[in-house]
């Protein structure tokens, strides 16, 4: 069990950030989703033992969030969303200092900092002052500072903010590698749902301080086995006509056609229609809801 919260409530004045939140999460790569103001930041801070909760209990990696707050932070790494830097240091000093703050000895911290900077791909740049770094380099630096002490759980908040597509791909690749191959559990909080899908297996959705949905991504995204999405090149109307001639209803959406296959008929009907209409089928797959649909559905169920 990676972490669990039981009935956690936290209010700040009139605002209830977390409302009787109970969630149990296994080890692995977990996505944390939720609209703005849902309590994601407060939940992350609760997991880090940074705030004192009004009610409820919780354990992170087996450690109680009320009693062992400092120990939790020694086993957890956190890369915050905002722009954060230690001033007036070069990259390698930044990461080594971050390690010393967790309790590493200075020599261990320096050795490990170099290793970790190799892993995130900051080469010679580590000898330059951090104020001169580009956004992509700062994000990598933050990640390096979060994993320098080899935590069992890594929490990242919007790690690809402001990065260009190449950098985003590399960072997601690093996150995937850490979670899937290197046995580090990952809590990935992001608004970019395709990023979360690419990295995580399990997802939790928060809304207004409560848990709205939780489960494996593959299970939440239902596979509609009898409903197909088909995209053809060129003439879509002729193809649709052929399908209706064969007794199938085709609903156009964006650039695809959604077709319900009745029982007993297979995808061969599409090929027959394509041959008859002289169309090329470029995309033909059973429809699977996207993570965005899962998310919006969970939110609408709340209301």
């Amino acid at each position, binding site marked *: 069990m990676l972490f669990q919260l039981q009935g956690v409530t936290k209010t700040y004045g009139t605002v209830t950030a977390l409302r009787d939140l109970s969630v149990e999460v296994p080890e692995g790569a977990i996505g944390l*989703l*939720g*609209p*703005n*103001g849902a309590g994601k930041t407060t939940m992350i801070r609760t997991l880090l033992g940074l705030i004192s909760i009004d009610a409820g209990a919780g354990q992170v990696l087996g450690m109680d969030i009320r009693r062992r707050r400092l120990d939790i932070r020694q086993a957890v790494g956190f890369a915050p969303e905002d722009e954060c830097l230690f001033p007036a240091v070069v990259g390698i000093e930044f990461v080594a200092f971050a390690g010393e703050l967790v309790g590493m000895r200075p020599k261990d911290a320096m050795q490990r900092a170099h290793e970790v900077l190799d892993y995130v791909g900051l080469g010679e740049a580590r000898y330059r002052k951090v104020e001169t770094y*580009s*956004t*992509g380099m700062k994000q990598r630096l933050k990640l390096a500072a979060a994993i320098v002490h080899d935590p069992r759980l890594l929490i990242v908040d919007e790690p690809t*903010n*402001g*990065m*260009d*597509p*190449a*950098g*985003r*791909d590399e960072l997601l690749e690093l996150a995937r590698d850490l979670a899937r191959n290197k046995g580090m559990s990952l809590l990935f909080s992001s*608004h*970019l*749902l*395709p990023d979360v899908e690419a990295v995580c297996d399990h997802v939790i959705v928060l809304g207004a301080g409560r848990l709205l949905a939780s489960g494996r991504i593959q299970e939440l995204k239902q596979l509609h086995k009898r409903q197909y999405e088909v995209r053809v*090149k060129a003439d879509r109307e002729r193809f649709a006509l052929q399908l209706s001639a064969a007794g199938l209803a085709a609903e156009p959406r964006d*650039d695809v056609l959604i077709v319900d296959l009745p029982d007993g008929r*297979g*995808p*061969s009907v599409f*090929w*027959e229609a*394509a*041959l008859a209409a002289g169309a*090329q*089928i*470029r*995309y*033909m*797959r*059973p429809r699977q809801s996207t993570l*965005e649909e899962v*998310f*919006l559905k969970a*939110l609408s169920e709340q209301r």
Partner: protein
Amino acid sequence: MHLEPTDQVAGPSQVTPIVELRSVSKWYGNVIGLNNLTIRVPAGVTGLLGPNGAGKSTLLQLATGQLRPSQGVVRVLGHAPWNNSALNRYLGLCPEQDAFYEWMTGWEFVHTCARLSGLPMADARDATARALEQVRMTDNMGRAIRGYSKGMRQRTKVAQALVHDPLVLFLDEPLSGTDPVARRELMDIIIALGAQGKTVIMSSHVLHEVQGVTANIILLNRGRLVAEGNIQQIRDLIDQHPHRIVLRASDPRALAAKLVRCDDVVGLELGRKDGSILAETHAPDTFYARLAPISLEDGTAIEEVYSDDDNLEAVFKYLVNP
């Protein structure tokens, strides 16, 4: 004020370009921002992409009249935007930076922008209410901006770009910091604007957002134009990288055996984790055309077909890091 087009649009394209750059270069001291760029942007939604430092912000600043080109000619709606305050009435800009008058409420801020664009008092009030309703900020418009979250600030920025009902809209990372709900709503607004015939140029690093609103892109790299037009067409033109097409069949190897005989197939990958096969071809038209007959033959019924790299991510990767 009524603008008369001063330049006749020349060129072979039949679609009238709304934003046009002809051999435009811009440098800052020694550093090159744009290098000999010629683009024609038609009506509708166009995505503006490129790695960091590619010149996207420079392009947007030139088109909105904040910068003057070092070389070349910039025309928006037929007029030069530099020093042209009359033109600004028809342009809307949602910049990337977060610079507000923090003490103003959302309503006051958008209203001020409306008045600054030249709307008379009564119209400005209606337009502000409408714009804030469009971006779903009506509940929060009475609060000071300093208390806004990132998503709310972003929506206010889009509102001030829309409030004076411009003909051309320039959006620089409009969806950054927004949660999926706001993201979906803003994307729908942008698609609707394009459908109404307005021109929207949206610059973003998040490729699936761009792909969600438009199929037309402009790709810049190092200040130069790399590609322009429809994503699918661009993909078809990329010769060096064969198209990767995934096929799922009940008997994948039999299907592979039939495909290996075709001249245009240059590679086949078998033994993939989910039982599908991957075919690589340089001639997608020929390949896709033969799938229907093959599927209807005995033993090689094809259950699923899709392309691995028919999307914007692949196009971007192939063109920027060849």
